[in-house]
């Protein structure tokens, strides 16, 4: 019964929970806790999938010592190893690709950009943009367009936002979810988790910007950068900007954090409890 429960839990955490979590838009007002909940749900899903085979072993042995059924034990080990290998392979592929792309981009930025005070790189381009290149030798990159358009206070908000990404290593979080995303076979993939996590990471960095410059300057910076594009650079719809703007208007909601943290504990704890029950 317990291995079935674990398999069911894996399905719930991998396919059902992300949909439910993504629908809880109120959670966006507590981005830090929401990110913990997302990570816990994903980790719980992986653990549950890994634990199905080991949990089935005691039931199938029916009281016999393990040495009597080597084939059965080996089969269970292979089942778990396949799940783990898929994850590790995906991790390796995504990590290598992302790091190579970052390194290449950083090399070119180091050549074309000018150095500004505080190690910020400036690209001589009229489009207003700001971003960071995470990693061991990270960079914050601004365009001349953003320096020309934004007053100091808004610029500080943008810099605080980017530095929050680098300091809290949001890139690792995004990488983790990209890896999970790619480890699922393509027909079964859902963009929900990755999309929501991207939004939450931005909302969290926005909180750092608000602490530095206040809601109004942060909101104005969002609008200024959204408008600061050259006409030839048409952008697709469906970006995070409107939601982030709304979050700046409504402010944080600390009560929701507690619920999210509780959910996180349950998501990781459940597979562990089920596996230990199977072996006791």
């Amino acid at each position, binding site marked *: 019964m317990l291995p079935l429960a674990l398999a069911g839990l894996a399905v719930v955490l991998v396919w059902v929970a992300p949909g439910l979590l993504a629908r809880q838009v109120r959670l966006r007002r507590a981005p830090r806790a929401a990110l913990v909940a997302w990570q816990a749900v994903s980790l719980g899903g992986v653990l549950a999938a890994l634990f199905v085979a080991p949990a089935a072993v005691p039931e199938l042995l029916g009281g016999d010592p393990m040495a009597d059924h080597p084939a059965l034990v080996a089969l269970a080990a292979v089942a778990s190893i396949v799940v783990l290998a898929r994850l590790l392979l995906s991790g390796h592929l995504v990590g290598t690709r992302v790091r190579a792309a970052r390194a290449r981009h950083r090399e070119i930025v180091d050549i074309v950009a000018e150095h500004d005070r505080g190690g910020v790189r400036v690209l001589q381009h009229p489009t207003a943009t700001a971003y960071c290149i995470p990693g061991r030798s990270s960079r914050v990159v601004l365009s001349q367009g953003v320096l020309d358009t934004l007053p100091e206070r808004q610029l500080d908000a943008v810099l605080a936002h980017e530095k929050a990404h680098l300091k809290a290593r949001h890139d690792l979080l995004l990488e983790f979810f990209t890896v999970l995303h790619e480890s699922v076979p393509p027909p079964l993939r859902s963009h929900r988790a990755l999309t929501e996590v991207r939004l939450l990471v931005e909302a969290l960095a926005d909180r750092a910007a608000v602490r530095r410059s206040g809601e109004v300057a942060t909101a104005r910076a969002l*609008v200024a950068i959204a408008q600061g594009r050259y006409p030839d650079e048409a952008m697709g719809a469906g970006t995070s900007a409107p939601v982030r703007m709304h979050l700046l208007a409504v402010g944080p909601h600390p009560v929701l954090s507690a619920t999210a943290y509780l959910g996180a504990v349950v998501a990781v704890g459940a597979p562990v409890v089920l596996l230990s029950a199977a072996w006791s």
Partner: protein
Amino acid sequence: MPHSTSTPRLGDLERLVMERLWEAGRTHGATVRDVHEALERDREIAYTTVMTVLDRLAKKELVTRERDGRAWRYFPADTREALTAQTMRRTLDDMDVTDRRAALLHFLDGASSDEIADLKAALAVVESRADEEASAPRGLRGRLRR
């Protein structure tokens, strides 16, 4: 007298060398000797270092080279402006969208014109809320003045 005593990082050297090539221009180009002589005016730098840096830049396809007698003549593959624009457009050719968004974290991924209108409306809400909060501590006095 060279005024730089510490050895610059490879990335900084690449930048200095590219700057020389951009100054030399896309049609004229420069040999290792040209670049070395120009750089040596400001800092101590070995001829072989310049050669290595140009070789690296060629591998990265940032410069092209042609035979010029017994030496190589190097040309910038793109103007500085073109390379900047390319960097801005995030045309990291071999990357799909998922990877790019994991590789670089943009302040804003962009907005459509419809969204910009919505953003402005939302900004007005944020601003008016801030105004209310600012005037709240003044309490009755602030309200009476209106």
